[in-house]
């Protein structure tokens, strides 16, 4: 419209010029005509002057006209140029606008322009398409339409925040809902601006982050599973960063070590938590692993701030490819409960073994008692009857004699019972050539816990290269076990000196193998010394008094000798000898 109007103005210019030129030609012709018709009148100077003036004014008009024409042409040229440039600019603008429109419409970002009330003023095609709508379906609608019910409040408040801080960009993540009802996660960047017409609008650009969110959720879930699994299995993970030496822990590792959660921990702090008795060993293992770059595995204890002790088991694996920035990764498991269970199991086993032994012994004793009691009752009854036969008037000597014979038979029978028990004990032995040191070590593995729980230090002084003895392994174990347990019990009351149990094996002057078990306990009272090995003799409230008696019969059956003596210092020493095993005797 505008260029056309300018063209008309130019044209009118041109016609005015022509009109002026035409009228000037007409005036000149008129003057010439007057001059020719009237003839020259030299006498009339005024007339002449008028003609001259007329001609001069005509000339002047002509020159003026030419000047004006030139100027006009110059101006026209300038104007034309300007119009061309303007045209060019407009075209460029149009092109640019189309381009931007293209960008706006199809940039893979959803653009929304809403007013303060949340009505959609503008939306790009991409944005509408992403939500399953056409642009026209959204224009003029409330923007809440694209939010699920539970997110609408958040959407509203987000818009409100933008409106309160005009010009500032805000961003948030929110869920939207498509026309078909499916949901998507978006990240929105928004800012409120005041338009030229003073209307407040909010510009929103949002990007679909559903995939990222899904990945995040999957990761979070996986992390949650992992944390849960770690918690359930009492196993934490750890790793060491290359260079910094920082240690990275999982949540469970923090829990096991009793530290507050932090991005990383220093090895020195970890070492402080390790039980002082285990610290050096752990340090050595870690140092060796760092040098050798080898995997390692070790169990150690943690001393917690509350004084409790945790047993943990750690395994670590060096990472060959250090591009991950991690030198090694490992797992640490809290095995306190398992250790506790092991201890309890061991106790239960020990108790069971004890009960079994006592029960077996009790049953055997009851059976022996019954066997011996029968002839004994017969003896007593016969003896009473015998007295009555003799007390008769006159005494019935024949019956009395017969009765006494019965008494002798019954007495012998009781003796036979005892013989049978002895034979039974000997028959069940299974003697083989064995090394006494092995037997001692086997027993030590059984009493290790007992020693530990009674805080008894054990010293083994075993002579190397002792010749083998011919003995029943189980019975020998029983003897040594009995002596060791006796020693431990004898030291139970000892508070003023270290409780120490010494087991020695050696070859004595008669080249028999000698085993001694010494304690620093209550010792042996002189009046009890010769009764120690009697059956049913005990100084203990819970004992049966069978232990040492059985030990002695076992040692006797092996052709050895068991004896006891008080130490020069506190405590007592029990010792037994065993004859050597000779090849030809087997």
């Amino acid at each position, binding site marked *: 419209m505008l260029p056309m109007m300018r063209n008309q103005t130019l044209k009118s210019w041109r016609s005015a010029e022509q009109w002026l030129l035409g009228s000037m030609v007409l005036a000149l012709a008129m003057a010439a005509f007057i001059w020719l018709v009237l003839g020259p009148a030299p006498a009339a100077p005024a007339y002449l002057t008028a003609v001259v003036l007329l001609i001069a004014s005509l000339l002047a008009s002509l020159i003026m006209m030419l000047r004006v024409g030139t100027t006009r042409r110059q101006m026209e040229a300038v104007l034309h140029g300007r119009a061309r440039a303007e045209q060019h600019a407009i075209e460029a603008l149009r092109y640019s606008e189309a381009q931007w429109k293209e960008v706006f419409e199809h940039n893979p970002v959803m653009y929304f322009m809403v007013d303060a009330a949340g009505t959609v003023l503008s939306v790009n095609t991409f944005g509408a398409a992403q939500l399953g709508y056409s642009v026209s379906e959204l224009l003029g609608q409330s923007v809440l339409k694209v939010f699920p019910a539970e997110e609408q409040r958040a959407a509203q408040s987000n818009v409100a925040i933008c409106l309160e801080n005009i010009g500032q960009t805000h961003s948030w993540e929110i869920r939207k809902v498509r026309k078909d009802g499916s949901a998507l996660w978006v990240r929105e960047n928004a800012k409120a601006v005041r338009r030229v017409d003073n209307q407040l609008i909010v510009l929103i650009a949002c990007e679909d982050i559903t995939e990222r969110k899904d990945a995040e959720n999957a990761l979070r879930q996986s992390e949650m599973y992992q944390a849960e699994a770690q918690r359930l299995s009492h196993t934490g993970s750890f790793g060491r960063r290359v260079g910094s030496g920082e240690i990275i822990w999982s949540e469970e590792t923090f829990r096991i070590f009793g530290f507050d959660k932090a991005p990383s921990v220093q090895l020195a702090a970890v070492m402080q938590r390790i039980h002082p008795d285990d610290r050096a060993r752990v340090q050595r293992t870690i140092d060796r692993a760092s040098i050798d770059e080898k995997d390692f595995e070790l169990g150690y204890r943690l001393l917690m701030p509350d004084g409790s002790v945790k047993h943990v088991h750690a395994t670590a694996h060096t990472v060959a490819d250090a591009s991950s920035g991690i030198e090694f990764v490992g797992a640490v498991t809290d095995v306190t409960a398992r250790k506790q269970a092991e201890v309890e199991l061991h106790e239960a086993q020990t108790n069971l073994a004890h009960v079994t032994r006592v029960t077996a012994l009790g049953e055997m004793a009851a059976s022996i008692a019954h066997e011996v*009691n029968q002839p*004994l*009752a017969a003896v007593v009854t*016969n003896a*009473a009857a*015998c007295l*009555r036969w003799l007390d008769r008037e006159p005494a019935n000597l024949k*019956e009395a004699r017969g009765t006494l014979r019965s008494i002798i038979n*019954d007495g012998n029978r009781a003796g036979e019972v005892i013989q049978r028990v002895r034979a039974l004990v000997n028959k069940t032995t299974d003697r083989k050539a064995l090394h006494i040191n092995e037997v001692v070590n086997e027993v030590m593995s059984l009493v290790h816990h007992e020693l530990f729980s009674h805080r008894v230090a054990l010293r083994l002084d075993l002579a190397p290269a002792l010749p083998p003895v011919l003995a029943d392994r189980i019975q020998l174990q029983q003897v040594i076990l009995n002596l060791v347990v006796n020693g431990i019990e004898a030291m139970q009351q000892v508070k003023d000196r270290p409780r120490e149990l010494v087991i020695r094996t050696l070859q004595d002057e008669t080249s028999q193998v000698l085993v001694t078990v010494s304690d620093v306990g209550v010792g042996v009272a002189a009046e009890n010394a010769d009764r120690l090995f009697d059956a049913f003799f005990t100084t203990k409230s819970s004992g049966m008094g069978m232990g040492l008696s059985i030990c002695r019969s076992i040692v006797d059956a092996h052709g050895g000798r068991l004896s006891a003596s008080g130490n020069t210092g506190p405590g007592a020493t029990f010792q037994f000898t065993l004859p050597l095993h000779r090849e030809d005797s087997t």
Partner: protein
Amino acid sequence: MTGRPASRDTLTSAEEPVVFVVDDDASMREALSNLFRSVGLRVEVFGSAHEFLQSTLPNVASCLILDIRLPRLSGLDFQAELAKADIRIPIIFMTGHGDIPMTVRAMKAGAVDFLTKPFRDQDMLDAVTTAIERDRVSRDEARVLSGLHARFATLTPREREVMALVTAGRMNKQIAAEIGIAEITVKIHRGHIMRKMTAKSLPDLVRMAEMLGIGPAAGGPQT
């Protein structure tokens, strides 16, 4: 071992009592036999409960000495067996182990005593004396009762009817009216009853009726 009497019916309570011993231990059997013989008691010994049950028991005051630990059938089970077979003989238990629950069970089942081996001879003899005395009394009672039963069996049905009414305290006239016979006939029946039952007096007859557990068929109120 002494010979056994052929028949129990011919024996009376005056006869010599006998002690039975059941123990699987031969020397114990012998010792007990010795002890009882030394005080002049008759004794018979058995190695098992089975042996004892197989034998014919003399009808004299007796008691049984039983080891609680018998092979196969235990002493307590044996006691139950005897009770089931209605053999009422006082039992003295012997045991090697003073087992309280066993003692309680044995005593509840009617044991006279419970002795732990080895026992004092006097304790055993005292227990035997008590047991035999108890058996003698119950045997006497049983014998009296069986005599009564035998005599009662000789009565005619009419006499039994009359005896029930008489011992219930009815007058002859009442009885006659009740069973519809003449008073004189009642008197004759009474005479027969007194003679057949060897009753010395009416109170004697009443006691006999009580022991037999008989009363009037139609128990009217006693006047």
